[in-house]
């Protein structure tokens, strides 16, 4: 598949269909890959795709201020690109999505398949401009079993669990920096007028940061788990992003990244919305 990928990107670059191409290249050892930014068609030989290509390259689309881009996407990353198009960050015709069939990616720290890849519905990418390779989608639907299990706990247990997790947090903001939908140039966490969040790192403040971040990405998070894999202290952020996806589905029947014309759940309303909980 690497050969096909290189040929395709070479063609796109020489025909000027894309100014830059974003893909993966081999990093310092055989278990590591890193994003590669290709401008010169002669450089395309660097590009690869394998089971260690864990990064979500949709992240760089908002960072590179270029007119025409080509981006290599796994099936799950396409949702991110669609979500960014829905947010009008760039136009659909200005980005060439190269979908690659993917049998799941491995976390090189544990050498295990990522949890999100187990019941993957998009091993064969959907909605891409070019599709390379073949893979069979999982027959089982996406499972929220661990979130449902966690929800059964009492609020005291939940509080203790999260306090323990956020004690570890060093507020490196890796989760925010790696998040494709966290592209605000002026993040609330760094703002000093008003200062929502002091720069002091403790469990309480870390929790406040994560609560507000989760609230900001609700209805936009495509549950790509980039934050979860980037976390240096292994905070299970997937427990939160999964909850967001579950809530969007259950409360508003909405799935982010599915439709580029949809209105996100919180910026629209329906006169018939339920109000069971409101006194």
């Amino acid at each position, binding site marked *: 598949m690497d050969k096909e990928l290189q040929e395709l990107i070479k063609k796109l670059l020489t025909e000027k269909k894309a100014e830059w191409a974003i893909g993966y290249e081999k990093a310092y050892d055989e278990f590591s890959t890193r994003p590669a930014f290709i401008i010169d068609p002669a450089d395309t030989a660097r590009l690869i795709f394998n089971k260690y290509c864990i990064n979500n390259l949709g992240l760089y689309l908002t960072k590179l201020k270029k007119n025409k881009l080509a981006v290599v996407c796994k099936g799950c990353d396409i949702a991110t690109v669609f979500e960014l198009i829905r947010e009008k960050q760039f136009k659909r015709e200005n980005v060439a999505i190269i979908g690659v069939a993917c049998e799941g990616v491995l976390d090189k720290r544990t050498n295990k398949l990522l949890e999100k890849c187990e019941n993957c519905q998009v091993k064969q990418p959907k909605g891409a401009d070019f599709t390379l390779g073949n893979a069979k989608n999982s027959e089982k639907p996406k499972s929220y079993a661990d979130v449902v299990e*966690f*929800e059964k706990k*009492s*609020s*005291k*247990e*939940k*509080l*203790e*669990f*999260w*306090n323990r997790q956020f004690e570890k947090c060093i507020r490196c903001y890796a989760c925010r920096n790696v998040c494709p939908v966290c592209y605000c140039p002026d993040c*609330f966490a760094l703002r000093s007028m008003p200062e*929502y969040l002091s720069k002091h790192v403790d469990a*309480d403040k870390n*929790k*406040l940061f994560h*609560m*507000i971040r*989760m*609230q900001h990405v*609700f209805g936009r998070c495509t549950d790509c788990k980039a934050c979860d894999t980037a976390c240096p202290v292994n905070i299970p952020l997937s427990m*939160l992003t999964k*909850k*967001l996806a579950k*809530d*969007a589905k259950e*409360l*508003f029947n909405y799935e982010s990244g599915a439709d580029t014309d949809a209105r996100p*759940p*919180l*910026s*629209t*309303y*329906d*006169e018939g*919305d*339920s*109000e069971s*909980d*409101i*006194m």
Partner: protein
Amino acid sequence: MSNEKKKDINVVGFLCNWCSYAGADMTGLGRNIYPSNIKIIRIPCTGRMDPMMIIEAFHNGADGVLVSGCHPGDCHYSEGNFYWRRRYPHLKSLMEHFGIDKRRFHASWVSASEGKKFAEVVKKVVADVKDWQENG
């Protein structure tokens, strides 16, 4: 000056300027009695209710939060409370996930003439928070 004095329940009430704030006024005019644990903050509309403010209220030690606005369809800005009605269940569910008990976070519709209802709402909120404090 005893140190054993029990800590009072602190409820932050975000009331919309056009209905609930006037409703709270009406409660006083009607001489309805309600717990004094609620500290009222006036907001222009429930649609302005930034979830960050609620999260911050809890973070800064509020035991409970009440957000109250106009009945759906009565909003001064026509649709502010419809947006709030969508934000509320999501926020409540997320807060619960983070371990903030559902008895601590409430929303209500109180119009400017419903002084009696406002007193009842506050009584219910304070009772719920008390229940959470005593029974965990």
